[in-house]
């Protein structure tokens, strides 16, 4: 702070102070109770009189200091913590409320029957950057799905449609949207991601209905062009027809992984008629409570029920819908054959079996869809914070690189110490992701990424 010229304090000291104000005026000055015309002469005297300044300093109570208002009232900012904290609280309430609403809608629609239907118009109504599929309003059934209107993602989809990009945008929301109409054949709206991320289709279908895939993709786009003829739709539609001919029902089953932290579980949607669509359930919205566990081989008529029929030629078809004018609306279904190993995995990967980590780091296992939980002893005094479960293949990680693996649903555990190029994994493990029994990724709290392609036998550290 710049200093005043040295003559200033000298002259201040030399100035005559005049009559002393009485205690009433000093007290009133301290309490900001003096009008300006009286305040000025008192302050002028105080600037000259050291004694009165001393009296004033002694007379002001200590509590007045903390409660003293600022004279700069004109510069009060809206960005004070007092204002911001209420804004933050309000924003949290809005976000939580929206999440609850979305979840409710998802759960409600997941329970309703959605027989397989196909709507050519909806296929034709494609546009780029489809984030959500929305029932075509032109279709009769679309009008009877008021609950879809309530889904918060609808508006986002319409905005994405208007974008005219040529790529599928990765959905921000992981919540699968299931639409159903009580007044019309229920339909499935499936959200898809880029092919490299795997097909993400949450499907729940109930009831016997016509052949074909239990879900269909519909879209309504604000700026969608006029329906296009067959070539783009024909491929997947043709495939659907092929499948439908081989099926009796349109059940799609959801073989759901136990509820786990996001990114560490997988769910498999298995249409009863041998179509397997791999699903990565990244949010807890695909939940066992709402999608009750299904034993392998069982047939269920409500969406989301898991079923693993045998000898099912899995349907995985990957294709990119071509749209001449308005971009792509992509989904991917990849056709593979169900191998014996996959069948065994799916059989063991029963939705009744769930894994979780408690708040105190204890690994827990449920065999009744989460109704009851049993602690699993992995190692003495071990505390975990990350988990990946692929059927019987369980990985758990904790602090300081603590990592255990079980290939038999937790009966036996092996400690794994990832190392590469003389460097060991010693950081706290924050997340474990295994897409299958061989390929996995470990993320640590300090941002390290460790990869394995052989089930943990060897590791590499991502630079």
């Amino acid at each position, binding site marked *: 702070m710049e200093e005043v010229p040295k003559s200033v304090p000298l002259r*201040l000291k030399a100035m005559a102070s005049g009559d002393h104000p009485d205690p009433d005026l000093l007290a009133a000055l301290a309490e900001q109770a003096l009008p300006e015309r009286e305040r000025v*002469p008192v*302050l002028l005297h105080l*600037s000259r009189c050291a004694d*009165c300044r001393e*009296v004033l300093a002694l*007379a002001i109570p200590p509590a007045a200091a903390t409660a003293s208002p600022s004279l700069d009232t004109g510069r009060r900012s809206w960005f004070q913590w007092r204002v911001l904290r209420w804004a933050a609280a309000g924003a949290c309430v809005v976000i939580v409320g929206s999440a609850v609403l979305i979840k409710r809608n998802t759960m409600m629609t997941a329970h309703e029957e959605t027989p397989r239907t196909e709507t050519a118009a909806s296929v034709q109504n494609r546009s780029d950057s489809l984030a959500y599929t929305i029932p075509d309003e032109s279709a009769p059934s679309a009008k009877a799905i008021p609950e879809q209107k309530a889904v918060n993602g609808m508006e986002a989809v319409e905005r994405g449609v208007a974008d005219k990009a040529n790529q599928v945008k990765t959905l921000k929301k992981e919540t699968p949207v299931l639409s159903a109409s009580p007044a019309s054949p229920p339909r499935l709206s499936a959200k898809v991601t880029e092919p490299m991320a795997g097909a993400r289709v949450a499907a729940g279908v109930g009831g016997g209905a016509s052949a074909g895939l239990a879900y269909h993709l519909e879209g309504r786009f604000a700026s969608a062009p006029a329906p296009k003829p067959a070539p783009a739709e024909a491929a997947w539609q043709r495939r659907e027809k092929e499948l439908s001919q081989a099926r009796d029902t349109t059940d799609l089953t959801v073989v759901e992984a136990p509820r786990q932290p996001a990114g560490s579980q997988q769910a498999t949607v298995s249409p009863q008629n041998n179509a397997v669509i791999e699903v990565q359930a990244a949010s807890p919205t695909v939940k066992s409570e709402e999608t009750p566990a299904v034993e392998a081989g069982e047939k269920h008529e409500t969406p989301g029920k898991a079923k693993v029929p045998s000898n099912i030629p899995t349907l995985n078809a990957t294709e990119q819908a071509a749209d001449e004018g308005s971009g792509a609306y992509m989904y991917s279904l990849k056709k593979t054959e169900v191998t014996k190993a996959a069948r065994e995995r799916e059989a063991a990967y029963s939705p009744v079996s769930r894994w979780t980590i408690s708040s105190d780091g204890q690994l827990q296992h449920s065999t009744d869809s989460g109704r009851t939980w049993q602690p699993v002893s992995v190692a003495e005094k071990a505390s975990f914070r990350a988990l990946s479960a692929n059927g019987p293949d369980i990985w758990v990680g904790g602090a300081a690189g603590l990592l255990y693996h079980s290939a038999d649903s937790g009966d036996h555990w092996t400690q794994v110490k990832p190392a590469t190029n003389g460097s060991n994994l010693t950081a706290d493990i924050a997340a474990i992701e295994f897409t299958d029994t061989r390929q996995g990724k470990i993320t640590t709290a300090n941002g390290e990424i460790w990869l394995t392609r052989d089930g943990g036998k060897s590791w590499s550290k991502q630079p």
Partner: protein
Amino acid sequence: MESTAQSVVGVPPEVQAVAAELYALCGAAEFGMSREELAHILAQVAQKYLEPGSPLPAPEFCRSLKLPELVLARACAAGNERAWEVFMSRYREKLYEVGLQITREDSAARDLSDSLYAELYGTTTRDGVRVSKLNFYTGRGSLEGWLRTVMAQEHVNRYRRQKRNLSLDEETEEGTQFAAPETEPANPLDPRLEAATDEAFTVLPAEDQFILAAYYLDDRTLVEIAHMLSVHESTISRKLDKLAKALRKQILAGLGRRGMSRRQAEEAMEADVRDFTLNLRDRLAQESPGKTFHKKKVGAPAGDGNG
């Protein structure tokens, strides 16, 4: 209730009206005070603070007073027992707490608060009339604030009296017994610099001068100064910075008007303070404890701080 206040010749009708209006609200009846007595008190206070032709009307001024506390204080000064009961319950302990905050020592706090209490109660009489310091409370600020100020004044007075009464041994300890006499400094303050500085002060607001005095003369911290003015510390910091720059500029301009070149002016401003003429004793004597703490004397109660 006997009144110790100086009689006021006639009470303006507007003050009487205000007294009638506020009589029920201020609790005067509880302490045996009549409407006429209340009107007299209000007129007295208005006469003390309101200049003839003041823009503030007397009724409005009376309404701005802390009437319930004024009534309580005046009733206590008049010896009303009920008023003393209320005063004791509200302020007896507070007097001690204030004393402790001021003196920071238990025994000194008790001594100070007891001494003030005696003055408030009116242990002395004049012409057969009890003299209480509470008669000088006018309701401009709160009664508690007034009590704090009075106690602080008494403490400062006691401190100065104690300083003047230092024993020889104590002077020896403090090193003042054989203090060297003051010598005339080599370089007196340039009269042009004095004048330019005084000129700069004339345009400086009173609050700014107070801040400068508190900061540079009393060595108070920004927090303490902010405390005294009921503002935030950052406000004081900003003001001091602005003041320093403004004063430099104005004094430079003033010295320039008085024939100094810029270089001369800057040299004069930066000259060592110790070289200036400074007779602190004379100046401190001028600012010695006030003979009166009242702007206008109302009676001559004993127990006022005397220098």
